[in-house]
């Protein structure tokens, strides 16, 4: 294949990575931004989304599109409910102390991972894509489902932005993000905001897991890479900045696609980590984060 089409293919693959990464990382960014909690278990919510998608699609007979639609609707809601319970049972009891919650979410990571291993098993299982449509370009054919993932992620992120900027709940979350104590003085129930935020963040990660599973297969250890990449994206974009997260996801996703295809995936990860190191040295608050 000539260089031009090869680059186009790499960019399209990168766009899929960026879309899924933006979804997962926006959840992590939201949780840190509003709650000041570094959620080390975030990748496990992504994994649970994928595993639950497999469970739902295997339980529902009929056309793959119907089963997948059910997975898209059910899995993120179940994961969000689990996260809300974890917030009430663990994080709230620690009074959302930043250091204690890091340790607690490391524990939660292992609990969720081992629970998945016990209940789901060690095997990787595929989920049938909801449709097999392919777009035929002059140089190569490309999965229509992958383009759907980009479109769906874009719509969800647009919805998230509208939710945060145009709704009362979004206003309450942004006010709590700026000043928890003052928010309480204006009648905002911060505990409820935190629970909703943690659930929303987990739900976004789970949705990313559902969308990726027809491409990658569901497996109990699949949460590690998205966690690492989400942290890379959130650190580069600026902790708590949704706009920065989206831009950083695009940069990391596209560069990952291009470098992986022209060189190796390992080099892509090395360069992304190097970029994080440079950001931490020269602009610790991230490209779009506010200075503490």
């Amino acid at each position, binding site marked *: 294949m000539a260089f031009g089409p090869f680059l186009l293919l790499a960019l399209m693959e990168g766009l899929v990575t960026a879309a899924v990464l933006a979804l997962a990382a926006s959840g992590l960014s939201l949780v840190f931004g509003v709650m000041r909690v570094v959620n080390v278990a975030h990748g496990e919510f992504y994994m649970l989304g994928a595993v639950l998608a497999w469970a739902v699609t295997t339980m529902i007979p009929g056309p793959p599109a119907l089963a997948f639609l059910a997975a898209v609707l059910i899995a993120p809601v179940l994961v969000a409910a689990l996260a809300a319970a974890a917030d009430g049972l663990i994080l709230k009891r620690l009074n959302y102390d930043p250091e204690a919650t890091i340790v607690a979410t490391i524990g939660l990571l292992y609990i969720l991972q081992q629970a998945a291993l016990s209940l789901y098993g060690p095997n990787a299982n595929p989920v049938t894509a909801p449709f097999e449509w392919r777009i035929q370009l002059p140089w190569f054919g490309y999965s229509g489902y992958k383009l759907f993932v980009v479109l769906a992620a874009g719509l969800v992120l647009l919805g998230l932005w509208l939710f945060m900027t145009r709704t*009362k709940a979004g*206003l*309450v979350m*942004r*006010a709590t993000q*700026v*000043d928890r*104590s*003052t*928010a*309480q*003085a*204006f*009648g*905002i*129930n*911060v505990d409820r905001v935190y629970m909703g935020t943690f659930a929303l963040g987990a739900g976004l990660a789970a949705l990313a897991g559902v969308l990726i599973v027809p491409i990658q297969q569901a497996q109990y250890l699949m949460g590690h890479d998205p966690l690492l990449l989400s942290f890379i994206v959130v650190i580069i974009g600026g902790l708590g900045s949704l706009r920065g997260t989206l831009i950083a996801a695009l940069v990391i996703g596209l560069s990952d696609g291009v470098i992986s295809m022209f060189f190796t995936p390992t080099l892509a990860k090395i360069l992304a980590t190097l970029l994080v190191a440079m950001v931490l040295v020269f602009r610790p608050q991230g490209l779009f984060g*506010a200075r503490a």
Partner: protein
Amino acid sequence: MALEVRGLTAGYGPVTVLRGVDFRAEAGQITCLMGRNGVGKSSFLKALMGLLPATAGTIALDGTPLHGLPAHEIPRHGLAYVPQGRRLFGPLTVAENLAVGGLVHGNDTATLAQVLTLFPRLRERLDQTAGTLSGGEQQMLAIARALCLRPRVLLLDEPTEGLQPSMIALIQEAILSLKAGGVAVVLVEQRVDAVLKLADRVAFMVAGQVAETMPVKGLTVDAEVFRTYVGV
């Protein structure tokens, strides 16, 4: 209508800051809190709002107990707070800050219109982010945001600190109009001339307690009590 506080004790962890505060604020009156730095004036306002947990004592508004309620429940009973240093939601616009203030009452347009009539300058700045306003405008917004709660008791912590004289006059005018509207105003203030101009009563705090409360009528700038309790 009255805010009645009896034996309020509160602190930060093991450090007790308020040691049995007795205090009363009446509707349509301005009660000033004065005292040297560190005597617990700001902590007292925080404790009234539930932001500093009380370990003993009672707080009641018209006989309804407020002590022990979670902080987010207090504003629903009619207490509003303008903290020291304004504590605005800086990245949010003026309109959004006012909307947060009006959350408790569902952001009714009549209250917002009244508030913007009191501070017409804010009407021109509704889409501007709060953090980019001038100091005086930020203070106006901090008070306006609290007024969106339709308070029966307004707690103000040094609202004119660091402002230029023209802004101080505007803020003081607004406070007096709130008093005329029947709001009980509790004002932490360090400047004697402002206390004499605004207050009906003044409570002097010493070491986490109200040592003495008296009417302002008859006091002068060089009164002995100011030297004793404030050191001016």
